[in-house]
C-alpha cells in the first residue's frame, strides 16, 4: 500500500478520533460560549477527517468511502496516535490535549500544503488555518488556567503531566512519507514551551513515551470509543442514512 495512503489514513484517523472526543463536550462545557468554540473545533477536525479518509479510500482503490473506513474497521485497523483517543478528563486535560495536538498539526499541515501530492496539499492548506485557530484557543486557555487560581494551576499542571508522554509518538520518524513528522519536533517544542512558560507551568520530564497507535496497537480506550461511534451504522448493514 502506498505511503500516501498510509499517511492520509493516519492523519484522517487522528482528526476523526479527535473530533469524536471533542464533540463529547457538547452540552457539557464550562461556559456556553465555550460549548460553541469546542463544537467549532470538533467540526474542523471532522471536516479534515472526511477529506483525508475519502482520499485514503480512493488511493486504496478497494471501494471504501469515508464511512466504510470510519464505521467498518476495528480498533486494530485504526492508525491514529494514542493522544487523541485518551478520555477527555477535566477541561484542563482537554486543553492540554488540544495544545499538543494543535502544536503538532499546525507545522504538519503547513508542510503538507507544500508536498507534491496535490490532494494532500489542498487538505494541508485548508486545515492549517483551522489548526492555527485551535492552537490559539488552546494556548489562551492553558495560560488562563495555568495563571488563574491555585486550583486551576494545579489542574492544568496535572493535565500537562498526564498528556505530555503521548507527544513523543507524534514525531516518530517516517522518512519516506510526504512529510516526515520527525522534522516538525523543533517547531512543536518552541511553541509549547513558550505557552507553558507564559502559563507559569513546568515542562514535564520525559521518561515514559507510550506509542503504537500508528501500528494499530492502541490503549484500552479506543475500542469503547469505536463501539459507541459505530453501533448504529453496524446494526444496519448496507443501509443508507
Amino acid at each position, binding site marked *: 500500500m502506498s505511503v500516501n495512503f498510509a499517511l492520509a489514513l493516519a492523519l484522517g484517523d487522528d482528526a476523526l478520533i479527535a473530533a469524536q472526543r471533542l*464533540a463529547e463536550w457538547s452540552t457539557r462545557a*464550562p461556559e456556553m460560549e465555550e460549548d460553541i468554540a469546542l463544537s467549532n473545533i470538533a467540526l474542523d477536525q471532522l471536516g479534515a477527517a472526511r477529506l483525508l*479518509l475519502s482520499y485514503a479510500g480512493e488511493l486504496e482503490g478497494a471501494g471504501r468511502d469515508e464511512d466504510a473506513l470510519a464505521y467498518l474497521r476495528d480498533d486494530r485497523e485504526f492508525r491514529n496516535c494514542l493522544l487523541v483517543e485518551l478520555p477527555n478528563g477535566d477541561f484542563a486535560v482537554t486543553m492540554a490535549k488540544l495544545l499538543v495536538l494543535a502544536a503538532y498539526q499546525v507545522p504538519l499541515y503547513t508542510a503538507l500544503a507544500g508536498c507534491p501530492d496535490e490532494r494532500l496539499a489542498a487538505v494541508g492548506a485548508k486545515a492549517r488555518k483551522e489548526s492555527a485557530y485551535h492552537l490559539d484557543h488552546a494556548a489562551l486557555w492553558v*495560560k*488562563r488556567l495555568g*495563571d488563574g487560581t491555585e486550583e486551576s494551576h494545579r489542574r492544568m499542571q496535572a493535565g500537562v503531566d498526564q498528556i505530555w508522554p503521548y507527544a513523543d509518538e507524534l514525531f516518530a520518524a517516517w522518512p519516506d512519507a510526504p512529510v516526515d513528522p520527525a522534522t516538525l519536533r523543533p517547531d512543536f517544542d518552541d511553541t509549547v514551551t513558550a505557552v507553558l512558560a507564559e502559563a507559569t507551568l513546568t515542562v514535564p520530564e520525559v521518561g515514559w513515551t507510550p506509542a503504537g497507535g500508528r501500528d494499530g496497537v492502541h490503549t484500552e480506550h479506543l475500542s469503547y470509543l469505536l463501539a459507541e461511534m459505530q453501533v448504529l451504522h453496524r446494526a444496519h448493514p448496507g443501509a443508507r442514512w
Partner: protein
Amino acid sequence: MYGNDFPGEDPPGGLLGEVEAAEAALRAAAARDRGAAEPGGDLAAYFAEVVDADQKIEPRDWMPEAYRRTLIRQIAQHAHSEIIGMQPEGNWISRAPSLKRKAILLAKVQDEAGHGLYLYAAAETLGVSRDELVDLLLSGRQKYSSIFNYPTLSWADVGAIGWLVDGAAIVNQVPLCRCSYGPYARAMIRVCKEESFHQRQGYEILHTLAHGTPAQKAMAQDSVDRWWYPSLAMFGPPDGDSTHSAQSMAWKIKRFSNDELRQRFVDMCVGQAEALGLRIPDPELRWNDERQAYDFTEPDYDELMRVIKGNGPCNRQRMEHRRRAHSEGAWVREAAAAYAAKRAVKEKEKVAA
C-alpha cells in the same frame, strides 16, 4: 455556514418568506410617522401609540412593569429551551450513522447554543443579568419547553425533532419576529433564519429512513408515533385555559392564540407526512371542508401539565445534566476571572509607570 451539505430543495412549510416579510415590516414601521404623542408627555399613551403603530419598543423606553416582566419570563424561558434542547439531540452526536450526519447534527446543536445566547442577550436588555436567569433555570424557578423532557430513543428521533419539534417551534416563533419589543423581534428574525435549516435536516433524515430498509422505515414511524402529540402540546394549553394570552396579544408580544397556531401546524404537517410516506398517529385526522382545516385529536393536556410540573420522563435527567455542567465548570470560570483581574492590575501598573 454548516448548511452546505443539504440538498437544494425548499424547506417544508416555506415560512422563511414570512420571516423576511416581518423584517421588511420592521424597517417600514421604523420609517413611518406616528401620531402626535410626544416622548415627554403621557408615558403610557406614548407607549400605546408606539405599539399601535407596529413600531418597536426599545430598551431605554418607558414600558409598563408587567410588560417588562412578561417579556423577561418569555424570552428567558425561550433561551432556557434552546440550551436544554441541545441535550436530546446531543444524545446522538457520538452515534450518528454517517460522518456527514454527525457534522450536520453537531453544527445544529451548536446553533442551538448560539440561539440561547442571542436570547439571553435580548433578555438582558430588560434589566436582568444572564447569571440571574441561569440561576432561575437551575433552581427550577423558570421553565423550559416541556418537549425536551421526552427521550431520544432512536436515530429517527433526531429526524422527528427536526421535522415536528423544530417545525412547531418555527410556527410559534415566526409571529414573534413581529413582536413589539425590538431586541426580541430582531433576535427572533435571526433565529428563524437559522432554524429553517434545522427543520430541513430533520425532514431529510426521516425521508431517507422512510425510503430505506424496512427496519429504518419502522424506526421512522415509531418515532413519529412518539413525537406527534408532544409536538402538538408545544403550543400550550387550549385557549380557554391559557393564562397569559389576552394581555400578551394586546401588547403585541403574542400575535396568534395557542389553538390558532396548533391548527396551522397540523394543516402544514399533513401534506408533509404524506410526502414522507409516514402516518400521523391520529385516526380522527380528516379534512373539514367547512372550516377549511383539518380536524384532529387534541394532545393529552393532563400529560402536558404533569411534564410541566416536573414529572416527564427526562425532567430530572435534563436538569441534573445542566447543573452538573454548570458546577463542574465553576473552577474554569473562576480561573478566567482571576486571570483577567491579574491582567487588569498589570495593565494599570504599566500605565502608572
